């Protein structure tokens, strides 16, 4: 979709690019007109990836940076409708076991090799290869039995079982397409600089400092969110790693960097008054929620779960801690998923009711600290908190929930731990409550998170169904949705599934997965409608 903006001729662009080779934007801040060239500095607070190839592993930091140099087969628009990108058409067979895709024939990778069906096949096989150790991408292509190269621009996926969500999950960055020539170099080299079709190319990576990306001058505009034909406007992107939020904000304020992610709520609120722009792009799939472990006491009793939910009262905390930047969610799915349903009344705070429920459930005694006791067991809730994944505001919110539920007799034990120990606690089932964000694309996330199959751990011990829901009716609905390609029917099935999940009180939705960006001295920053990462293709410096 092109807007009526002036699109600069390629020749002029190249000329300016030669002049402004990789230097900071020129001085003279008389007017804020967009210009060509220059270096855009992006400072991320997320963990530094250990490999720039998002096939390996598959976390959000990799998604953020690979958005600039790798492109997936399909995109989405803001309504959630799939859009052509590297693939132009796609269709499933009647039985759902064969998907036929038509691909663009005018695109090359940045090393000159052509993008074709053979490349798609190589990528799927790379994702499925155990040596790659892909997590998110692997889940996307797990059901693909084989890939058939029909001709250079047509490919067929033969599925082991129908998967209606296939194209949705292929829109993720963790299943983006890399050059087979790049993959063939071996993982060690490919991790340093994957080769893709995107608007930028990885030039260098200084660990713990920055990754330098240079413009791909041969970029062919296939991105549905491109606003102009041809290469990006800026010459270079410096991707800096600044883990400390206060330092990052100071760098933005002083002009050292142009774009930051993970800003503090107070900084978001103050941004407008400081001439800093704000981009709010909630992550797709699931919302941020607290899940209660239904497989062991005390939350194996639905009454106790409801009591917890009724007593938690997160709304005042969300208001004051996030200062208006986060809206309370009553849905399991993110607000950018069109098939989400929500139910505010189900989660209305009611401390009296909570007390009633607990009394009826047999938790009538209390010990000296005011914690309820039943049959010699205290009403203890172990809540491991990942300091990597939960922001300071969120950790404070959990403290407030801890205090609110203590008033009705819960003993919530918050345990802030590093990521490794956190996964360890989950794998060992040493938790009664946990908040585990999950990012993918599409409502099929419900199957990943709440199907009983997801209680079975991977060899590493990891499993996604933290609520440990095991409901045959729910399983049946989720499996059925996977085999249904008609969108209206899918929406209805997923609505029923969400109804079951919400009514079980095993999930306390909080808010969308927060994904805010602040930027200054640059325009044209927008988020991909797939995984909500910022796209720098249309960005222009303004100073």
């Amino acid at each position: 979709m092109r807007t009526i903006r002036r699109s600069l001729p390629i020749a002029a662009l190249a000329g300016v690019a030669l002049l402004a080779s990789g230097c900071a934007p020129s001085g003279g801040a008389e007017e804020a007109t967009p210009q060509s060239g220059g270096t855009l500095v992006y400072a991320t607070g997320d963990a530094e990836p250990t490999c720039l190839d998002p096939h390996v592993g598959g976390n959000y930091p990799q998604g953020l940076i690979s958005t600039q140099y790798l492109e997936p087969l399909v995109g989405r628009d803001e309504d959630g409708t799939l859009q052509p990108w590297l693939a132009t058409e796609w269709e499933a067979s009647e039985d759902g076991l064969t998907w036929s895709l038509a691909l663009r024939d005018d695109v090359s990778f940045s090393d000159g090799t052509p993008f074709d069906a053979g490349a798609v096949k190589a990528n799927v096989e790379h994702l499925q290869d155990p040596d790659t150790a892909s997590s998110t991408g692997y889940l996307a292509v797990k059901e693909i039995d084989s890939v058939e190269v029909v001709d250079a621009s047509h490919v067929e996926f033969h599925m082991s079982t129908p998967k209606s969500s296939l194209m949705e999950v292929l829109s993720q960055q963790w299943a983006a397409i890399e050059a087979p020539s790049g993959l063939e170099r071996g993982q060690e080299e490919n991790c340093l600089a994957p080769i893709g079709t995107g608007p930028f190319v990885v030039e260098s990576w200084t660990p713990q400092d920055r990754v330098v990306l240079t413009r791909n001058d041969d970029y062919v505009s296939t991105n549905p969110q491109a606003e102009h034909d041809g290469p990006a406007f800026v010459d270079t992107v410096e991707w800096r790693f600044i883990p400390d939020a206060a330092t990052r904000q100071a760098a933005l304020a002083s002009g050292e960097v142009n774009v930051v992610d993970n800003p503090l709520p107070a900084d978001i609120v103050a941004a407008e008054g400081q001439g800093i722009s704000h981009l709010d792009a909630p992550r797709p799939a699931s919302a941020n929620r607290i899940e209660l472990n239904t497989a062991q006491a005390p939350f194996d009793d639905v009454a106790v779960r409801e009591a917890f939910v009724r007593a938690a009262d997160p709304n005042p905390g969300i208001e004051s801690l996030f200062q208006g930047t986060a809206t309370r969610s009553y849905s399991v799915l993110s607000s950018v998923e069109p098939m989400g349903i929500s139910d505010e009344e189900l989660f209305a705070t009611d401390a009296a009711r909570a007390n009633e429920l607990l009394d009826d459930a047999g938790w009538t005694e209390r010990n000296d600290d005011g914690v309820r006791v039943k049959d010699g067991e205290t009403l203890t809730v172990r809540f491991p908190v990942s300091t990597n994944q939960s922001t300071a505001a969120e950790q404070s919110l959990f403290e407030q929930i801890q205090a609110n539920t203590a008033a009705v007799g819960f003993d919530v034990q918050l345990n802030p731990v590093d990521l490794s120990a956190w996964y360890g606690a989950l794998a060992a089932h040493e938790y009664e409550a946990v908040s585990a964000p999950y990012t993918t694309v599409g409502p099929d996330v419900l199957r990943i998170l709440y199907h009983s199959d997801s209680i079975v751990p991977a060899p590493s011990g990891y499993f996604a169904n933290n609520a440990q829901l095991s409901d045959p009716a729910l399983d049946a609905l989720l499996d059925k949705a996977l085999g249904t390609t008609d969108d209206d029917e899918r929406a209805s099935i997923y609505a029923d599934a969400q109804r079951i999940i919400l009514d079980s009180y095993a999930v306390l939705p909080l808010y969308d997965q927060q994904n805010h960006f602040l930027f200054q001295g640059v325009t044209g920053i927008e988020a991909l409608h797939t995984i909500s990462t910022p796209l720098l293709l249309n960005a222009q410096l303004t100073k």
Partner: protein
Amino acid sequence: MSAVTAARPSAGRWTALGAGGTVALAFVVVLAAAVAVPWLLAPVSPLAVSPADGFAPPSPAHPFGADESGRDVLVRIVHGARSSVGIGLAATALGAGLGLVIGFASGLGPRWLDSALGRVIEVLFALPTLVLALLLVAVLGSGTGPSVLAIGLATAPGYARILRSRVRTVARGDYVAYARLEGVGRARVLLRHIVPNTLWPLVATATLGIGQAVVWVAALSFLGLGQEPPSPEWGAMLGAGRVYISTAWWMTVFPGLAIVSTATALTVLGRRLSGATA
């Protein structure tokens, strides 16, 4: 405290405290009260959340302001003394205790023991405190126990060295030689001469050490290796408040002042006790 004054065998009685020392002592007394009976000094719960008061700046109602959940910062600092100073005390006790054992064994035992223990001490010195703490976290996870262990282990060599040199000096002193000459048993010599003359410098050093330990505990909390919420430990408050430093400076400044004041007071007191002049 210079090397010379530390070696003087008869040093260490109560020298005149002076103005600085008196202020420090007064502060430490208040601190001890906060550790022992926080409820007397601040009869409000440090855990009581009040979202409406979130980020309240300093005012008569909240002299040091309120934190992000509306909890009064002054109240949390008073109650937090128990954790912060308590952990510092525990770590120092561990370090001084270990140092005592190693120091005495080194100073009084056979030469091979002295050599061997000397190597152990060198190894522990070769690992800077935070490096040691990170290692321990990798093994034990974060929390109070590992903090105490890390700081105790890291400071033990320091105490061991001081003890060892004191013990050796005293053990070679004239009056000990005379006592032995007169036939006094080894154990009696130990109790009546060596111990009294070595413990006082240890106490003085340990007082200094508690101050340092409090700072180390806060550093570990900053790196995310400390106490569990909602504990009002000063370092944890500092770490949590630092995120909001540009909009709610009081959440960072006051806990920081508490740490600095406590450590300073203890250090001044420790130096006075050891007989230093300034």
